[in-house]
């Protein structure tokens, strides 16, 4: 989805919200209050992919207990437009890790149309993925006591995902099949691959209201990041990525032609980031606290 289209969707959403707010004066809210401002923590156990600290996999039994989590922070505002529904928007920051353990970047040296040498760089640390998101959603309260009780949220989410490579160090190596050696220093400076992703969100939750003011919330959210769908399910972490090489027909170190899809190392970083966005956003639990503002 292009930026222009995204803007159009946002504007349309805002207009719809305003129209609803104007005509829906019959909403009782909770004791007359309809606006909730809420801070929530989202998270899910890092089962198969690493979190920002590079940890993954769980074991709840001592002595090997471990339960690494991915966390995010969310600021949400929602407004009940009638007893069965509410509109809302949330801003979020979500951080996780991108596994670079098998990433090798290399450059082939070609002589007489043959690869004679590969100068590669293995990643030593994992990258950190920061995402900044905006979600516009509608909540459906089937019990008719919005903003209290069980509800289902359906919305659209736009994310700005940025991979922080500052912790990633590439150590160099050289493979030769003759005596020529060329050592390259892989330069990461100035590389901060980023992308804008969008998708649909579906979530369920329960709101409780304490002392007529404090709102607590539990729930979960499933996000299908459509824009990152094509990045998911493919192994971008092949052994080689020939950033400046476009074709090899023979040679000892025949490259994986699959990797030729990517035209640059930055694109590889982006793909890895997108894939991680997809997996990290897919399912998250949510616990929040807020207040009835108006």
């Amino acid at each position, binding site marked *: 989805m292009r930026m222009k289209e995204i803007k159009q969707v946002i504007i349309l959403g805002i207009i719809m919200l305003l129209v609803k707010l104007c005509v829906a004066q019959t909403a*009782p809210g909770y004791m007359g209050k309809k606006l909730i401002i809420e801070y929530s923590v989202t998270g899910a156990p890092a089962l198969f992919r690493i979190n920002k600290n590079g940890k993954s996999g769980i074991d709840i039994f001592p002595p090997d207990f471990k339960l690494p989590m991915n966390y995010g922070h969310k600021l949400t505002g929602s407004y009940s437009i009638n007893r069965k529904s509410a509109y809302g928007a949330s801003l979020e920051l979500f951080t996780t890790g991108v596994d670079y353990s098998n990433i090798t970047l290399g450059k082939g040296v070609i002589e007489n149309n043959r690869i004679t040498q590969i100068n590669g760089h293995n990643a030593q640390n994992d990258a950190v993925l920061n995402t900044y998101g905006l979600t516009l959603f509608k909540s459906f309260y089937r019990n008719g006591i919005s903003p209290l009780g069980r509800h289902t949220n359906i919305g659209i989410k736009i994310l700005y995902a940025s991979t922080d490579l500052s912790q990633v160090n590439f150590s160099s190596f050289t493979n030769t099949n003759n005596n020529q050696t060329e050592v390259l220093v892989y330069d990461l400076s100035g590389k901060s691959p980023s992308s804008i992703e969008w998708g649909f969100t579906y979530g369920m939750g329960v709101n409780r209201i304490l002392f007529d003011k404090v709102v607590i919330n539990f729930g979960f959210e499933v996000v299908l990041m459509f824009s990152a769908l094509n990045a998911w399910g493919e192994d971008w972490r092949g052994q080689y990525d020939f950033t400046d090489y476009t074709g090899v027909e023979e040679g000892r170190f025949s490259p994986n032609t699959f990797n030729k899809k990517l035209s640059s190392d930055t694109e590889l970083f982006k793909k890895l980031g997108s894939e991680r966005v997809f997996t990290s956003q897919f399912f998250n639990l949510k616990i929040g606290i807020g207040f009835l503002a108006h």
Partner: protein
Amino acid sequence: MRLLFLAFMAHFSLALFSQDIDNFSILQSKGDVPEEFNTLSSEKVKEGIKTISKKDNLTDQKSAKRFILESNYFIDELLSNGAILYNESLCEYIGNVATVLLEDDKELRNQLRFYVLKSPTVNAFATDRGTIFITVGLLAQIENEAQLAFILSHEIVHYKNKHARTGYVEGQRIEHNSGKYRRDNWDKKLNKSKYSKELELQADIDGLQIFLKSKYSFKEINGAFDVLQYAHIPIDDVPFNTEIFNDQEFDVLKNYIKEEIEPIKPIDDEDDDDDYHTHPNINKRRSIMASEIEGKSNEGRTEFIYSTEAFKHVKTLAQFELSYLYTKQRLYGEALYNSYLLLRSYPNNKFLKTNIGYCLYAMSKYRNDGKIHKVLTDYSGIQGESQQVFYLFDKMEKKTMGTLAVKYLWDIKGEDKDNSFLSVIAEDALKELLLESGARKSDYKKIFPEKDTSQLAEEVVETKVSKYDRIKKLKDSEENEIQYAFVNLFKNPEFEKLMNQYEKEYVNKVKDGDEIEKNKREEARRKEKEGRALGIEKVVMVSPNYKRFDLRKQVTEQHEFSEGRKEDFIDLNIKCAEKTGVELSMISNTFFESTDKYNDMSLLNDWMDERFEHQNLHIYPYCKLFTDGLVQKYGTTYFGWSGMYSLRTKKTGWGWIGLSVLYYGMGIPIGIYYALTPENHTFYYTYLVDITNYDFLMSKEDYVKMKDHNDVMKSYIYDSYHQITTKTKE
């Protein structure tokens, strides 16, 4: 001396409390609210538990405890929902007869309280805490004071010997095979019945001792058993004649006569098996009593000691009240026949005529809706002369029934011009006739016929008429039975004007019916989502209710918790009304400030019960006749009923939890929490009505699968008041 005093009191109280039968209005409680109405049930339970003997075995103690809990809450619910009368002339009378009976046992007399239960059935029962209930149906049927005295003696023994509690404890022993039932308990139902009958016989025999101490005639014991044996027959048994409906050229009965009326059979015939009954066969009881009094002289004994006049008055009041009770229970055949019987003695009584008019109106509505069987008892099960009434209305065509209702109502409306209720239902009956029963204005003639000489000639050529002529003729004969019904009414310009108006409405309805229905459906859908905007400033909330049930426990209703939580519910109603700006008056059934409030609550609950029974039928409740007066009193026509039910059950959905427990055991804590906590369900309702009308302005019924936390309670209550007070946008 004491009897002299009682006689004086009888005269005095008769003068003080007597109701003018010509202007009869339903019976209502009087005087101060008895203390037990305003004492919390939990306090009564605490006191009751103190009476349990520690010497009893633990199982019996437990059973007694449960009995005290359940019975106290049950009795208090009966008292607080307005179903009884206290300090009314009927209660006073019963109390005075009891005083005569217990002249030598003042201590026992002082422990007893007599209330009249507003029920048409013939019954009396005593509770363990000294409250004795006598039904209106029983008072309407007994023939003299001595019969009542015998019944009271029986009930007094039940109280004195705590039969209710001992019966319950014994029942629990039978249920759990304990004590003497350990070995011989193959038929629990039979054992329970056997024990219950033993208690009843003991109450008869010991009651007789109390009875014999008085000067009441023991010949009347037989009479009392007659009352029980013929309790299923109305207050009298005379042929039903429709002269009250008939007019020149209009005689409804001639087409619906039942040739053979079902003969009357007593309850508990000689051969009736009472093995599984709670009470012994009446004939057996009769025989036992006869043997007990054998050889005793009845000399100097009398049917009346307290007051003959008071008895007659009480009986008449009860019989009039029966018409009301039958009608509000939608037993229109029974009500109509009861009023018919009374009308023979009180031919100009407006209450009785209005009652008959209402029964016709209601039956016509139900007939048009195809649900007459819901309000008219099947005539095949009726014995005696009243069967004709049930047969008549069962067979009557809807057009005829509507016509009869209109004719009767408009006729009596002319006689009772101040009766606004009558005007309202008379107009509504006319509207119903033209819009729903298929009758057209053209079906009714404006003048009576002249002698028709062509009829004979027609009969001669009968053989020559075609199939279609025959069908047409049959149809005409059906219409003929109603065609002269309104000849006199057409002289009333108001009647004709309304008839024209409803005829036009009918035409429009036929034209735009689909559109109207579609709009109604859309409106209902919108209201469901956005709520109502009723713009009402003042409401009266009646009998707010809260109950919690825990289906995991043996005693499912959590009485004590409910009692406390109900107070929260009432408080939150007051708070939410205040916050939304609704002026709220509360007629609570927890604490009665005055008898006035108790009567109002009772009347309004009757209104709502009746309205509920009518379901979607647009019909004015009969109780409107008496509730219209409350509009001025409370300054509003809007009355509401609200309540919450909380239900706790066992969890059912173990699938996901099971999976999460299995998965690395990470769900174990969740699984434990899930297993230990119940599944909660909360039901909330608010019904708001304009009691001068029949439509529900708000019928809010909500369900949430959550515990009834304060926030849940507040949300629903606030929403109700918000909808009540919100004004429609211009």
